[in-house]
């Protein structure tokens, strides 16, 4: 069964077909909370991808060693290790971003995308496939965060990555940097992806 899926598909499915946010609706908490600016969204996406790729690699290497009774505990310890590494790294080298993201970097530990991929994929597949899967999922997650945060920063602050791009008299839509703006934009994005899928299958 697993052999039938091509390596390419292992990688690409995370980007669209099984996108962790748009299709599986996992990891919504950081998605909604940190996407106020492109910088934050990108940092969050990269940090989560780093944790996902590292822990997928390690867990697929150790998959035959870990007894299944303690697999979740082992996964969490491994994930937590990489999250702490990412958290400390950001705090030491990018203190401003670390301050903006606040508790959401440590909270990657309980992000469903990461534990879900370990349980559903890395613990059952070889290292190569697991890395491809993690790369695809990480990329899918980061892309959605990037689009969401671009829309929110553009309309909510009139800037992208801190540079003014809207015309001078543009008055920012405050709602876009507030929680309702995150829900509205994400809802519209999920709606659009469903609409596209719907039209494709027709």
């Amino acid at each position, binding site marked *: 069964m697993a052999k039938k899926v091509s390596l390419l598909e292992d990688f690409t499915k995370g980007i669209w077909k099984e996108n962790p946010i748009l299709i599986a609706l996992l990891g919504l908490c950081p998605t909604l909370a940190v996407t106020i600016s492109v910088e934050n969204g990108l940092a969050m996406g990269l940090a989560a991808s780093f944790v996902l790729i590292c822990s997928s690699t390690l867990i697929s290497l150790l998959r035959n060693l870990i007894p299944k009774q303690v697999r979740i505990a082992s996964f969490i310890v491994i994930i937590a290790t990489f999250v702490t590494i990412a958290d400390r790294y950001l705090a030491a080298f990018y203190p401003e971003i670390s301050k903006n993201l606040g508790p959401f970097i440590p909270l990657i530990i309980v992000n469903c995308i990461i534990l879900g991929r370990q349980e559903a994929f890395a613990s059952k597949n070889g290292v190569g496939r697991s890395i491809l899967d993690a790369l695809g999922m990480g990329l899918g997650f980061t892309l959605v965060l990037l689009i969401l945060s671009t829309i929110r920063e553009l309309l909510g602050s009139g800037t992208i990555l801190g540079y003014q791009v809207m015309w001078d008299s543009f*008055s920012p*839509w*405050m709602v876009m940097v*507030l929680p309702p703006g995150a829900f509205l934009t994400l809802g519209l994005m999920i709606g659009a992806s469903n609409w596209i899928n719907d039209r494709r299958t027709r």
Partner: protein
Amino acid sequence: MEKNEITASDQAAEASETPKKKAPAPKPKKDPRDHLYKPKGRPLTMSSSPYSQTKDNVPKIMWCVSLALTPAVIGAVIFFGLKAVYMISISILAAMATEWIITRIRRKPNTLDDGSAFLTGLLLALTLPPTFPVSGCVLGSVFAIALGKQIFGGLGCNIFNPALLGRAFLQASFPVKMTTWVLPRYADMNAYTGSVSPDAITGATPLGLLKYEKIFTDLKPLFIGNVGGSLGETSALAILAGGIFLLILRHADWRIPVGFLGSVAIFGGIFWMVDPATYPSPLFHLLSGGLLLGAFFMATDMVTSPITIKGTWIYSIGAGLILVIIRLFGGLPEGVMYSILLMNGLTPLINRLTRPKFFGEARA
């Protein structure tokens, strides 16, 4: 015994008054049990649902409500000048254009002539401050129609009142512009009591003055409408005229304004009796802010208010209670929009809880 139950049941009697379709079927044979179904007096004719009692339809109601808003529009023009005409017409145009574009995209029949988009644009404009930029009116109208109504599936499927949702979006997006007021052209500076400085009054509505500056405004200008406020909400006189017209035509359920205004008067009155120096009188509550406009024209929206009589009372009294709490203890001076939107959100729940018993259903 059974006969009595049939005539006593409200539901059956209401439904039976004038059935929409008179079955042209041939006369049935005389049934020996006829007397069971046809009690003396009013005959009970049953047909399958839906039942319709009047010749009203959506366009007629929508255009009548728009007509009933004419006095408020005239008031807006008198007090705030031609800017009002500009804002109102741009809002309506934007709402109708959005409706047309989205029905085209959704490949649905054109619904412009049912007047609901016209009404949404009109109502939205009337709730905006006179200094609000016209581009913001367009944004609010587009949001109201696209995300307030069409995204749920069009008229009848929306959970919230589209005009109020558009206003809520604008309020959240441009909090400063949405609370920047000017006095109308004929404002009377003597109408304000308290430590008055002209600076304080130019920038506020009577409710804002009360909340932040502890300045009370006289009732007479409040009634006529030459105080600061949104385009169509300042003149209680104009709104009452339109509202009563609407109630006479029965295009709005009288229980909603009565319950809403009544509960505001009662709950506001309780606080006023405890401490008249801090809390405003019930009449001030009724005449100030957007309460009258909201109670007559927005809370009464048929799509977003409960369908049962008991539910209607819960809905309107609840809205009044929330309003008084927001006005007296909230961070904002005015809360009509949020009180109606909150009760809109509760409407499906209220409908479920107050569902009438099925005929013959045992008491639980």
